[in-house]
């Protein structure tokens, strides 16, 4: 009888220890989550500020435009080829690869023969190994049989002599695309992955507490 009581109390102690362990893990996950959330909000502010400057410069370009032309869809090149593409790198972190993929956006300079790797690398995640990135550039993807021309700077769609505010707008939008945008995409994925882990840990704690 005494041994049964002892074993019951031992099981209870083990369960309490396990709950304590899971609670600590949950605290750690929340700490990570709040840190990422802070980064997400900071990047969001950066994106809003950069886009806002871009919109302002674009409005200035339209205002200063001669002949009342508007820099918009009437001038888009219907054969445009992307100069900036996304690379999604699988995460191989020690946390079991559950903290989401990393997103980078890289550019191919116009008329280049080879791709230039000028993408912004998020150094906040040093655990990400050098990935097996796709080695093809926009130029390489072009099918010579279709006669597609090399990628050109989109600002050329609007003529050779474009106003300075349009160039400034292009610089702001490019800054938004290579900077905060991929970081926001990566952070959103990491937050999503952490939400799943937090949910699982909460469930495990509830299950142990009920038992």
């Amino acid at each position: 009888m005494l041994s049964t009581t002892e074993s019951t109390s031992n099981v209870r102690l083990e369960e309490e220890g396990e709950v304590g362990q899971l609670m600590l893990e949950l605290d750690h996950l929340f700490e990570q989550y709040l840190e990422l959330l802070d980064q997400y909000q900071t990047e969001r502010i950066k994106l809003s500020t950069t886009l806002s400057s871009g919109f302002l410069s674009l409005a200035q370009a339209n205002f200063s435009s001669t002949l009342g032309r508007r820099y918009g869809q009437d001038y888009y090149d219907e054969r445009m080829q992307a100069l900036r593409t996304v690379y999604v790198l699988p995460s191989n972190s020690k946390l079991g690869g559950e903290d989401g993929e990393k997103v980078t956006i890289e550019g191919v300079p116009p008329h280049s023969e080879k791709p230039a790797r000028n993408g912004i690398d998020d150094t906040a995640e040093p655990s990400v190994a050098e990935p097996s990135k796709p080695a093809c550039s926009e130029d390489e993807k072009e099918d010579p049989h279709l006669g597609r021309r090399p990628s050109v700077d989109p600002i050329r769609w609007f003529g050779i002599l474009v106003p300075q505010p349009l160039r400034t707008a292009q610089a702001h939008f490019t800054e938004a695309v290579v900077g905060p945008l991929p970081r926001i995409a990566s952070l959103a994925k990491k937050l999503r992955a952490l939400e799943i882990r937090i949910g699982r840990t909460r469930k495990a704690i509830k299950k142990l507490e009920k038992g």
Partner: protein
Amino acid sequence: MATTAAFKDRQFIAVIGDEDSVTGLLLAGVGHVTSPPDSQKNFLVVDQKTETSAIEHAFDRFTTERKDIAIVLINQHIADRIRHRVDTYTAAFPSVLEIPSKDHPYDPEKDSVLKRVRRLFGE
């Protein structure tokens, strides 16, 4: 976690936005038209005359049909027109990000990521 195969071909950024947003992002070099005869664009310019069904169709095309899109950018005020569709989108790829436009600043209250945060903390 999605497998590498699920995202290795996803390389383009799609845009659903007003004319200034699309123009700015195309100036940054994200615009792409696929080879003929398909000639599929990775952007949709939305104005007051654009039907909500056309926005929904573009959203579905970029998120479900096309396998080469990694990120879908949509102006927040346009996402409001298909809010149910955007909020119930849960797939890992492509990522859907709401961005501000010239006339509509970013509202954190509507951001789907921050909505999930509030749910997580039981609000």
